[in-house]
Structure formats: C-alpha cells, structure tokens
C-alpha cells in the first residue's frame, strides 16, 4: 500500500497496518510520545492496536515541542 506520512509518500509491503504496527515499521522513536492523526482525525491511544491504516491514507505524526525560552 502507498500512504502519506507527514506529507511524504511511503510504500509498505502490507495491505493494511494498525497504528501500533506502523509505529514499529516506520521506526518511530519514543512512539509513546507521538500523536497520530489519520485523514484529519486524531486517533486515541487506546485504538492504536485496532485502528487500521490503509492504502491512500494520510498519516501525520505530531510531536511534543516543549521549549520556548
């Protein structure tokens, strides 16, 4: 399947991936601290194991940014 991650195209040898699986396959560091949005809908962490990402989906990994001073 082909999906967009943070605006860039990526190919995966899977028909679908759960959010948890994508976090591993896409090698996200510190996955417990990332917010995941799929097709403009924020996915609850409780649903990471069950929510399926499919061909054509647009995924955004959003990161905490704490600095400012």
């Amino acid at each position, binding site marked *: 399947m082909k999906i967009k991650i943070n605006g860039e195209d990526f190919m995966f040898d899977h028909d679908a991936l759960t959010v948890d699986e994508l976090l591993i396959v896409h090698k996200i560091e510190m996955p417990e601290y990332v917010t995941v949005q799929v097709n403009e809908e924020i996915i609850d962490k409780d649903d990471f194991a069950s929510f399926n990402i499919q061909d054509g989906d647009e995924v955004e990994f959003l990161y905490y940014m*704490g600095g400012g001073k």
Partner: protein
Amino acid sequence: MSLSNQQLERYSRHIILKEVGGKGQAKLLNAKVLIIGTGGLGAPAAMYLAAAGIGTIGLVDFDDVDLSNLQRQIIHSTKDVGKPKVLSGQETIYEMNPDVEVVTYQEWIKADNIRDIIKDRDYDFIIDGTDNFPAKFLINDACVLAGKPFSHAGIIRFNGQTMTYVPGQGPCYRCIFKNPPPPDAVPTCRQAGVIGVMGGIIGTLQASEAIKYILGVGSLLNGYLLTYDALKMEFRKVKIAQRKSCPVCGDNPGIHQLEDYEQAHCELK
C-alpha cells in the same frame, strides 16, 4: 481614539495598509496582549508587538536574565544579566515605544494565579512563550476555561511549531496533545539546545497572529498546527480536527478546574 501627529508618522506604514488604516491602528493601541515567558519566543513577540503599538503588554516571567539567554532572547542585553527578565523587557519596550504600557508579573504561572493574571487587565490575546509542558497545558486550560484566544508555540533544536486557539473555532492544544508527557521524557531547549533564530521566527509568527486577531483580518492558525524545520527550510501547515473526546474543550469535558503538573526540577529554570 484619535491618533497624534507623532503616532500618524510612527505607524504610517501600518496606516497605509487597507487591512489596518487609522481605525485598525487605534484598535492595536487599545489592545492588551499578555506574553507568558520573556525568553526565546516571548522576547521577539514582545518587541514586534511593542513596535506595532499594542497599547498594553503584560510580561510574565519569574527568571532573571542569564548570560546563556542572550544567544536568542533579544529583548535583553549584556548589561541586563542578573536583572529580572520582566524589568529588562519593560525597559527595552519603553525605549522602543512610549505608547506602550508594560505590566510586569514577576512570578511563575500556576493553577492558583494564572486566572488572576489574565483577568488583571482582561487581556484580549495571550501568547505562550513558556519552555515547559506544565505551563503549556496550564495556559491552554486557563484560556479554554476563560474563553480567551491564545497562541501556542514550542521550539527545539532546528524545529518549531505553533497553533492558535480561538474559543469555539477549532481545536485546543489538548485536542492534539491530550496530556503532558512524563517529566524528562521530552527534552527542553536547556537540555537539547535550540538555534537562536528559531524563537525569532516562531515568536514573530505568534505576534502576527495576535495582530491579525486584534485587527480581525485574514485567517489565523486555528485548526492548524504549523511546523517549521530550519534544516530542511520547510514549513508544513497540518490541518487538525477538534477532538470530540478532548478533556477540556470536547463534548463532555472532564477538566473544569486548573491543576499544576509536575515538572522535572532541572527543567524549571
């Protein structure tokens, strides 16, 4: 409110803009903006808002100016090291523009004082220029509960992000980041470093949002998270939906009172 001859000249490049004009400039002169944190983000935001003639600027910061601040916190100078940041900021602004009244709050924001600070002058818009998650979540919750618009921002290394909250018009910070990360899980500028210009870029975007909100022109970053990567020289404007289950602005919010989150001690300074 009529503008003096000096004001007509000082703000002439504003007044000539059809989106501003004399009427818009008068709005800016009557406006009140609260800037929480007088550092990397707050310094440039405060300076541009002061130059723009925002009539009342509130500065909140407990810290004193440190030599290591001067690489980016351009409102402070070498002579200010050791001085409270809010006083140093106030002096700089008074030298820039005598039209501006600067109200100083030399304290850390907490659950038990943030409402009073926002209410003190009934600020129109709030800028989050803080450097830690307890403060960022507190500002979000206080603004959502008080129905005040604010600009969130964060900067680290070569990256920055900002979003604008407008009551009833899109998501809040908690819609994206439901809860603060555990203390020490995510590094701060102090631990990870930040390129000096980043506060200037993102803080100036925050000042632009405040000015547009006051003037009532253009589109704001409500409903979007703008991210900036200086190494790639890339901006991305990511559309964000309101989270129905958001604990503070959702359909059935669980948060009705402010609370202080814990912060690793080393991050407090």
